[in-house]
């Protein structure tokens, strides 16, 4: 009996030390996750998350200081992707996913003051002093900085209209297994 106890104990010690050594010398390097997180964010440096730019937000996410729901323009899709990357669980019920939105100018109210043009991070608003402004859809990231500065509230956010080219089949409801 001593033989069996002794041999098993010896095996345990030996294998345990092998694991310990392996965890030191064969450890996997940390991935450069910050760059990957930054790539997932919209990149318009709008500042709605509270950080100066998307790079800083990505750094905070990598450190675990910021929640994955920090990006309003990104909506549910971004929050989900960030959560998947960081391996955290996220409660999406509070994320207002109005879907991707872009800014729209109500032309009758626009006074051509140019304030929105100056704050738009991607130069998506065209116009000139005393001329009606308009939003270039493809360049708008939905950061809504312009909405905040417009003095006449001519700017608002509207959902991106679904076109024939963007429509996709929904996933079928799966049967119980």
């Amino acid at each position, binding site marked *: 009996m001593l033989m069996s106890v002794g041999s098993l104990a010896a095996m345990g010690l030996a294998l345990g030390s092998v694991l310990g050594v392996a965890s030191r010398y064969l450890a996997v390097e940390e991935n450069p996750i910050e760059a990957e997180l930054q790539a997932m964010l919209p990149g318009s440096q709008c500042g709605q998350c509270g950080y100066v730019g998307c790079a800083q937000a990505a750094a905070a996410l990598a450190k675990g200081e910021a929640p994955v729901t920090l990006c309003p323009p990104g909506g549910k899709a971004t929050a989900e992707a960030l959560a998947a990357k960081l391996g955290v669980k996220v409660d999406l019920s509070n994320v207002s996913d109005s879907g991707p939105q872009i800014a729209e100018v109500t032309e009758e109210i626009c006074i051509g003051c140019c304030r929105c043009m100056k704050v738009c991070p991607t130069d998506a608003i065209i116009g000139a002093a005393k001329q009606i402004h308009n939003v270039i859809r493809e360049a708008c990231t939905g950061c809504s900085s312009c909405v905040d500065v417009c003095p006449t509230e001519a700017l608002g956010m509207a959902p991106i209209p679904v076109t024939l080219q963007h429509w996709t*089949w929904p996933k*079928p409801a799966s049967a*119980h*297994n």
Partner: protein
Amino acid sequence: MSQAYGIAVAAPHTTTTNSPTRIMTLVMLALAPATLYGFWLYGWPAFFLWAITIGAAMLGEAFCLRLLNRRAVPVLMDGSAILTGWLLAVSLPPWAPWWIGVFGGMFATTLGKQAFGGLGQNLYNPAMVARVALLISFPVQMTAWVAPLPMFSAGAPGLVDGLLIILKGVPHAYDAVTSATTLGFAKTELSRGVNLLESLQHAPALSFIGSRPGSLGETAAWLILAGGVAMMFMRIITWHIPLAMLAGIAIPAAILHAVDPSRYLEMGAHVLSGGAMLGAFFIATDYVTSPNSPRGQLIFGFGCGVFTYIIRTWAGYPEGVAFAVLLMNSMTPIIDTYFKPRIYGRDRKGNPLQTTN
């Protein structure tokens, strides 16, 4: 005359009339002749054990479904629990006690199937999982074979007696009936040092017709074969797994028997006894746990056969089909990863074909 049609339904707008229920029913029909023959061979106790096992399997499934808050009857109607119970029943000793059937049946559907997520999600063949669990937990009852005592013949138990045998155990009056299977006998004698050439003269006769000790599913080899071929014609199974498994048993058997007939049983004995035929046609061909591609199926079947032979010949159990099938089931995902069908326009590795123009 404009009309609205609600939400769009995706193509295709037509479908086959096939269904899982139809498939299970056809498999049960293919299994029925051998089972009925087994009832006749072993009498009423075999029938009651079969019924109890199937009932327990269905009970196990219904219990799990109720735990999931789902309605049990529609799911039971797909016939898979019944088939699992049936396959388990035909691999048990025909006069095993009732609680073997109950424990095995419930184990098969609860831990063998529903615990993985239900139909289509299990990694291991549920009937074999249950059989192995029974075999290692209750080795005595699971190896208590009986010689055939055909129904209505002199000395065979009647209906009520048959039920009592299952419920209360085999009374002493039937002691003469207990017997070993050919494989079991050969293995025991070999371990006692008696080589095959001598021992087989006293062994229970191997009969293709099936009049020998064994489980319901192993005695009527030709009825099992007929059922298997019928399933192939009905396009429920293909020839790949059965042929490969029988080859995996027969080829090593033939080679080793030629090398040393005193230690190794011949090919016919191996193929006809144990669960080889049943395993090849009904057990290893289970959709959920076998590979998807023809090449993968050949490898899977061959592996089942070879493992069966190895376990029968050199391992501690006289019968190896259940263990072999479970071992190969665990290989199925990796077989599926490496043996995929060739895609049109790509080579075997998955890269686009090179244009020769």
